């Protein structure tokens, strides 16, 4: 049982790391600020979600697990808000180049 849980953790965290990698590649390779923003926020939210999912079975009790989920929710909230703010600022500056 323990081995199965550890394998689940490793798989989920590795998948999360792949999403982070994909987001970073998108940030470096995409042509304009809007698509770069898209790559970063979407991939990071999913990536962090998978990492938190992988860490949940390793958490010390229910409180630790809830804290992990709270971290994920707060990062999502902050990430989504900041993405909106940056996109707004970009729109005010003019059409994407």
């Amino acid at each position, binding site marked *: 049982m323990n081995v199965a849980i550890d394998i689940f953790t490793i798989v989920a965290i590795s998948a999360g790391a792949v999403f982070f990698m994909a987001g970073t590649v998108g940030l470096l390779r995409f042509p304009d600020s809007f698509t770069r923003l898209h790559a970063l926020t979407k991939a990071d939210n999913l990536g962090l979600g998978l990492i938190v999912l992988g860490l949940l079975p390793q958490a010390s009790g229910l409180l630790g697990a809830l804290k992990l989920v709270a971290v994920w929710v*707060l990062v999502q*909230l*902050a990430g*989504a*808000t900041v993405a*909106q*703010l940056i996109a*707004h600022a970009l729109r005010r500056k003019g059409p994407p180049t």
Partner: protein
Amino acid sequence: MSVIQALDIGLALLVLAVAGWTIAAREAFASVVGYVAYGLLLSLVWVRLFAVDVALTEAAIGSGVTGVLLISAVVRLRKTEAPAAAERPGVVLRALAAALCTVVAAALAAVVLLMPDPGATLAPEAGQHLGELGVGNPITAVLIAYRSFDTMLEKVVLILAVIGVWSLASDGNWGGVAGPRRGARPEGALAFLAQLLPPLGIVVAIHIVWVGANEPGGAFQGGAILAAMALIVLMARLTEAPEIRRRWLRLALIAGPAVFLVVGIAGFAIPGSFLAYPAGWAKPLILLIEAFMTLSIAATLPMLVIGPPDRPPS
């Protein structure tokens, strides 16, 4: 070499690289972004050194509050950036600056490399008396009990900093609403976050102050979170900053050091020396001081960030 060691070396190299990039960046804004990233990486380093209290403070103050402060400074300096970049200091000045930096870096390196191994430590003594104080976190014990004089003076320095910022206001604006005049329309997404986050943030801040007695956390970290909540609400323009002539604001600013001082002077009367806590009363007194210090820090940091008033009081 184990995986953890490889990660530590990678982290150290990353910190050095980001530090170098921050110095080399041509634009002030890019440099500030580098500095914020540097602060966050540094807090990871503190976590790896098992100094979670320092890591929390570094993340909140070093990159959080200071980052906001520096970004607003960059915005104000934007007009002068191009002329300032055009001025190149002479060869002699640059050589002198390089020499000075080399000497300072060499002196710091010498101090670090010549440190005795194992280093002198007071950690066992710090851990010995935790029971008498009623706290389990030795860092809190150092801050509020063993070296409480330093902590009190730090808070006084914060008030002096606020006075320094306020004194930049022109005579006509003295007593007015703190901070620069802002546009009227709040930004939708930010306003939503500013309505959603503060209830959560206040609970987290109180939790962090409370667990500070036994685990990483404390008045400074909790106060910084409260200050961040106040700043989000101000930035989203949900409300105006208070007028700096308000009595409640000034009381909130001085409450922490004032309570600290009163407890300290009471120490003369009961146990017999300044800032000494009477036996059995240490824990409640520490909690009292921490509560008022949290309030003062939560009031001081936003006042430092938003700056002096630029319109007269109504």
